[in-house]
């Protein structure tokens, strides 16, 4: 399904919510692409939108995840 990847977004552009553990980024439909921190740790890199078929690939290195882990209690 590589043709359904709409775009690639750097992890620094995502917003992290330490309560839900979700990284989110605006979708052109008005909703938000989301992926859980744990999924990124497992090597997943596709963030999905709950309201439409669009998906984005998250561009990140393993090291980039530290800043988010530090925000978790």
């Amino acid at each position, binding site marked *: 399904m590589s043709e359904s990847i*709409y775009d690639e977004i750097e992890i620094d552009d995502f917003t992290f919510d330490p309560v839900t553990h979700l990284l989110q980024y605006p979708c052109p439909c*008005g909703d938000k692409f989301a992926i859980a921190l744990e999924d990124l740790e497992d090597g997943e890199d596709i963030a999905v939108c709950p309201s439409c078929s669009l998906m984005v690939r998250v561009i990140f290195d393993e090291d980039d995840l530290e800043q988010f882990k530090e925000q978790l209690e």
Partner: protein
Amino acid sequence: MFLILACGSNGNFQLGNGSDEDLNYLQNVHFVDDVTIHGKPMKIAGGGNHTLILFEDGQVYSAGSNEYGQLGIDPVISKSSPRFAPILGKWKDVACGWEFLVLLDTEGIAWSCGLGTKGELGIGDGIRQANKPTKVSIPDGLTFEIVRCGVFLTIARTLNGQLYGWGVCRKGQLGIQPKLSNGKPRASIWSPEKLETPLDYVTRFEMGRECTYIEGKDNLVYQLGTEITKVEMSPQIQHVDQIETMWSSIHFRSSNTIVSQGNNSHGQLLNDTPEDPLVCMATGSEHGLVLTQLNKVYAWGWGEHGNCGRHENNNDDDSDNQDPVTYSKLNLIYDDIHKVIAIGGGCATSWVVIEK
């Protein structure tokens, strides 16, 4: 009298038609005060889940999500407005970002409200939210003529063609940024700063999601990003009549020709020609609209929420390669007798203003 028609994504009432169902055909929008519109709508600005309409007499109406105060009305009253409600005051320009709005008053002072976690409001260091229009921190005596918002930033232009911006700037969208102690470029600007550009006078400017395009008096277009580059214009573009951006592409119109550059994941780069000459084009987040001289409006690009109308010309031939969310050819969305006076696009929303 004027009527405003809309279709597309509507999960937070951003079409202002009283419903939160997506629409794949144009329908009238509604106003809380039940006015038959007496003024001429001049501009429609779409944010992530909210919409503003500016009228000729300076009135502004908003509809959609008010979760963070982005409608410019008191969110204590309501977290959303399913119909268009008036914002107090008289305004000369309006713009919407993802979850915020910016208004220019008749004196040219900028006001903003909503949520901006990366400086989008421009009302001071670290101030992320405002529930009602709040004065942007502008140096004394500085006034603006026009204002535009990208997804996460705002740029306003002065009478003498200078640009001031605030919001997200990590990728050079507001000009080349100084490096921080961690070696990364500065990420946010919380109060307006002058953009350093190669142009003495900026005639037009448009923002994509990750870069800004500016045009000078000589018709040269520059892209502001991680570096500042001159945009190589296609030989098909003799004179740029219009520049419009989707989130991940740019579109130049020269008379009846549109040349697109950028992301083409869902047919965003126009590869079709209408049967009659163009009057104008408009763009939304990932789709576009054109108005033709025969008073028809067509849409193209990503149309998953009905913002490009319905696939009419399938001939029931449901072949496997028919992608139901991509409109790679121009799709007719308005073909009625009433004169179209304006078109506009938001986040998967389409807008047509008609005179009846």
